[in-house]
């Protein structure tokens, strides 16, 4: 490997090593609520939303953020996300899960 390319690789590796691991936020879904249903995130902070369901097939949909996950029983749905704009963004369950489905949602609040 040429000297210049080797140095570039070293610099890139150092930058990667300095980046903190994304904060993992576990979110439980069950009829008919997400827990927690309100998430406060910091602008630019990478996170991983980890969804599990305690009963039936659910969905997570935050259309204004372009985030979506199928939440299937006995699996963990991981949604990596780095907030790039401030504000409050609604999310909802988008897989019909019974009477009360319409009220199943929450909000992601992104602050600077």
């Amino acid at each position, binding site marked *: 490997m040429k000297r210049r390319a080797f140095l570039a690789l070293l610099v890139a590796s150092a930058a990667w090593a300095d980046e903190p691991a994304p904060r993992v936020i576990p979110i439980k879904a069950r009829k008919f609520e997400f827990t927690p249903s309100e998430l406060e995130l910091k602008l630019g902070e990478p996170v991983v939303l980890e969804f599990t369901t305690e009963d039936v*097939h659910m969905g997570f949909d935050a*259309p204004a953020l372009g985030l979506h996950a199928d939440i299937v029983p006995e699996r963990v749905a991981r949604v990596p996300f780095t907030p790039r704009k401030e504000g409050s963004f609604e999310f*909802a369950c988008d897989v019909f899960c019974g009477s009360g489905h319409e009220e199943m949602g929450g909000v992601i609040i992104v602050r600077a």
Partner: protein
Amino acid sequence: MQGIDRRQFLKVAGLGGLVFASGLARGADTTSAQDEFFFVQLSDTHWGFRGAPNPDAAGTLPKAIAAVNALDPQPDFIVFTGDLTHTTDDPAERRKRMAQFRDLIGGLRTRQIRLMPGEHDASLDNGEAFKEFFGATHYSFDHKGVHFIALDNVSDPKGAIGDEQLQWLKSDLATQKPQARIVVLTHRPLFPLYPQWDWATKDGERAIAALMPHQNVTVFYGHIHQEHHFKTAHIEHHAARSLIFPQPAPGSVPKRAPVAWDPAHPYRGLGFRQIEAERDEYKLSELPVLKV
């Protein structure tokens, strides 16, 4: 996408409701004067619901049926655009509610009735009980020069139409001339009205794309429990009021929840729609459950 300027169309009608005139494109295969007709759209009856948002849940549908029966003349046919019953996890209870609903609508004077499911009827069992009681969840029919298409965007609990039905839609549309008058009946909005509240169809844009080459398409739907008018290009989309409780305007409140029952104005925000198919337009009249 664009909203429709309701000020251009609305005027007070003599029936205690409002009239919305929806024009057709020039060159439409319009019906002759003797073929003009009207039909009635009822939606979101949620039979089986119990709760504070409607203390007369068991009485509202019978009152609406009485109001439809009082129309003179009677409509050519009646459509119910989904959520006939309120959902339940119990398959036996679901069938009981469907049987009761079937018996109730047996009291309608107009015997030509077209039904389609909402997510409350069909999403927990992929439409199984609905089909047992009421037949196919998607179909088409013709009436006096208008081609009607009922689309099912609820049997999939994710709120999608699905590849198979979309292929059927394309085949059905292939039988129609570009200027044919087409009415689509469905439950969820085909366009993304407010996906944050699940007021959308996952693959609705594919249905709209299939409809786009047709010049005279009008969509009547339910799901959002309020009157709403919208256009995607030349295609008009009209949501009907519910017969159980109203919902707030899209995004108008932090959390979607039924509009509270107002004892001073019972049944406010509930109602049904009369649609007159005239030579070059549809006239929509929004009618209340009870005349004030």
